[in-house]
């Protein structure tokens, strides 16, 4: 029987770490992910797990030590947020290109400046090209489930890539919700013993890692990483199937909510999906208008064809970004979803909005307004507010 609990997102991840019992966890405190290493340190202090904690002096060293530990043959994990991951940036690429199956618990928080500790996807979206698999969660249950699934995905020989398990800062990480925990033995069995094929501490086969590889080899390295990311698609689905058999909870690249007959769709990532679902229920109940939602779970690899297919019958789409990329046009999700739709000859009208930067609230009525705009857009085919910031005080600095 699953264990009923009430946990915050951070507690849920820490609990999953306890169940997985990884070998090494180097970590550095940063709000809002700090609690994860704190809980793990407590498990260690009380002899509940064998994990060795490395009290690194920075996040750069956290990821550097995680790379070292993983290369050595250990199952290695870390956790961070925001500027912490920005400091790891260089190492994110090293971890991915060395094909190390590291699992990083990322608690999404806005990047500075101004310094801001609240939820926003600028940290992970900025790292979207680093070669990591990225899995996002709406709720504590999802982040817990994703965390457990991350290990068999990362460690699959077809993949061998690091995985970033993302949750929204404070909203998910500190919000306490009901959760169903999987029994310890089932989790242990699900993730299995980590048995790397090649590692530094293998007494029978030496290994050299991190070569100088210039123009005659570099491209092949990148192509191999690309292939691993392509392969990750099937592995993510296989692991999700296995997880469903164990728990009854179904996961895929994204969740479709009321999309069977939807005319108007929102595409979104993370905790705001819950608010959007409430708006959809309200709209459908009161007006009968066919609102739907696609909540992206897997952003890397990007499920291009699947998303385009899921949006092929709707009239209008609002792609909603919780981070800027300062192209002076779209946000990262907006760019990729629209590219996917174009590639698959999608016919829906599309608008791209920004919301929730630096933790700004988005409400049910905000989403209701988005669906109203989509209805107008579908009728007029005229986009009037592309790239609008939802809930902005003013676009003019002097009025703020």
């Amino acid at each position, binding site marked *: 029987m699953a264990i009923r609990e009430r946990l915050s997102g951070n507690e849920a991840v820490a609990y999953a770490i306890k169940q997985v019992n990884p070998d090494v966890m180097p970590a550095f405190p940063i709000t809002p992910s700090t609690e994860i290493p704190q809980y793990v340190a407590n498990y260690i202090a009380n002899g509940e797990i*064998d994990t060795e904690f490395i009290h690194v002096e920075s996040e750069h*060293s956290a990821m*550097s030590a995680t790379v*070292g*530990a993983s290369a*050595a043959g250990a199952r290695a994990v870390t956790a961070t947020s925001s500027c912490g991951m920005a400091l790891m940036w260089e190492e994110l690429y090293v971890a991915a290109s060395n094909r190390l199956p590291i699992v990083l618990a990322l608690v999404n928080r806005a990047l500075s400046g101004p310094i801001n500790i609240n939820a926003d996807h600028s940290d992970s979206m900025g790292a979207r090209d680093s070669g990591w698999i990225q899995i996002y969660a709406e709720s504590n249950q999802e982040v817990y489930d994703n965390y457990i699934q991350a290990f068999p995905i990362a460690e699959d020989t077809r993949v061998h890539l690091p995985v970033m398990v993302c949750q929204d800062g404070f909203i998910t990480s500190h919000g306490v919700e009901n959760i169903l925990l999987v029994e310890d033995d089932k989790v242990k069995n699900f993730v299995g013993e980590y048995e790397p094929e090649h590692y530094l501490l293998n007494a029978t086969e030496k290994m*050299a*890692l991190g*070569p*100088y590889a210039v123009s005659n080899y570099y491209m092949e390295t990148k192509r191999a990483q690309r292939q691993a990311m392509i392969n990750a698609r099937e592995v993510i689905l296989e692991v999700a199937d296995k997880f469903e058999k164990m728990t009854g909870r179904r996961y895929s690249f994204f969740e479709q909510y009321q999309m069977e007959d939807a005319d108007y769709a929102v595409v979104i990532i993370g905790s705001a999906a819950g608010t959007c679902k409430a708006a959809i229920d309200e709209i459908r109940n009161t007006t009968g208008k066919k609102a739907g939602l696609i909540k992206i779970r897997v952003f890397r690899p990007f499920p291009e064809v699947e998303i385009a297919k899921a949006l092929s019958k709707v009239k209008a789409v609002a792609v909603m970004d919780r981070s800027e990329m300062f192209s002076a046009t779209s946000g990262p999700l907006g760019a990729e979803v629209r590219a996917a739709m174009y590639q698959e000859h999608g016919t829906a009208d599309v608008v791209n909005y920004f919301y929730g930067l630096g933790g700004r609230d988005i409400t049910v009525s905000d989403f209701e307004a988005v669906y109203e705009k989509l209805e107008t857009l579908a009728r007029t085919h005229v986009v009037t507010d592309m790239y609008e910031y939802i809930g902005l005080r003013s676009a003019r600095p002097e009025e703020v």
Partner: protein
Amino acid sequence: MEKTTYNFKEVMSKPERLAPGHRMCAGCGGTITVRTVLRALEEGDKAVIGNATGCLEVSSFMYPYTAYEDSYIHNAFENAGATLSGVETAYHVLKKKGKIKDNFKFITFGGDGGTYDIGFQSLSGAMERGHDMVYVCYDNGAYMNTGTQRSSATPQYADTTTTPAGKVSAGKVQIRKDLAAIMAEHHIPYVGQSTFTSNFKDLYTKAQKAIYTPGAAFLNVMSPCPRGWGYEPSEVMNICKLAVDTCYWPMFEVIEGRWILNYEPKNKLPIEEFLRPQRRFKHLFKKENEELIGKFQEEIDKQWEELKNKCN
């Protein structure tokens, strides 16, 4: 674990753990440092060698060839300390879990750029945490891999590509950072500063102590660079001798907080003897710069006295 006798022939006939065929320059001090330190590993002991980005890394592990006979990891420029601390921690936990049977030693090499400067924080963290590893700085006194830019290990007045001697410049303004002393202040069990003596006994025995003393150890090895310093490659051993005989590069060790001076020249030579053969100090021998050599000497004398006091 220190051997009571040092047999040069015996030590030199140990199998090389850095294979020939790497692409380091002729007369490179860094390569000599690596070979000497690795020679101090007991035959049969396994090791994981770490390496900060630098000349050594790009010349000894060019895909698909590695010069290392042991397992090896290069990660980035500024994190050799943290990276090897991850490897070492993995070793302990995997050994505890019974997944690894053999004994491994952990040695990482970084140039002065990767150690004194960009990798300083990572090094300090790894030493403070007390990982059972040796960090070896092959100190050639500048960023040699990128073409002799000034580092905090560069001696005062050195002509580098970012502190060029010019009409209104006499080279680097500041004196070099005393990294071995800073590492000793971490209160780690072993710190040694060395360079190449005629029979390599000093460096070899310090490497042995560093490797086989449990806990964190740091070795600072002056490793001359013929291209950056501007001397004939065949002169490397003479340059080292002049460095220690002028007291520019004192040989000392700090064992459990106890400072020991390993070499005191019978005849302390004037600093000019060390400076003159090197192109990087050529400008100091112009008439208008005469007083700078005096200042250099004053600094050397001051630091030498300070060191002797610590070692008493």
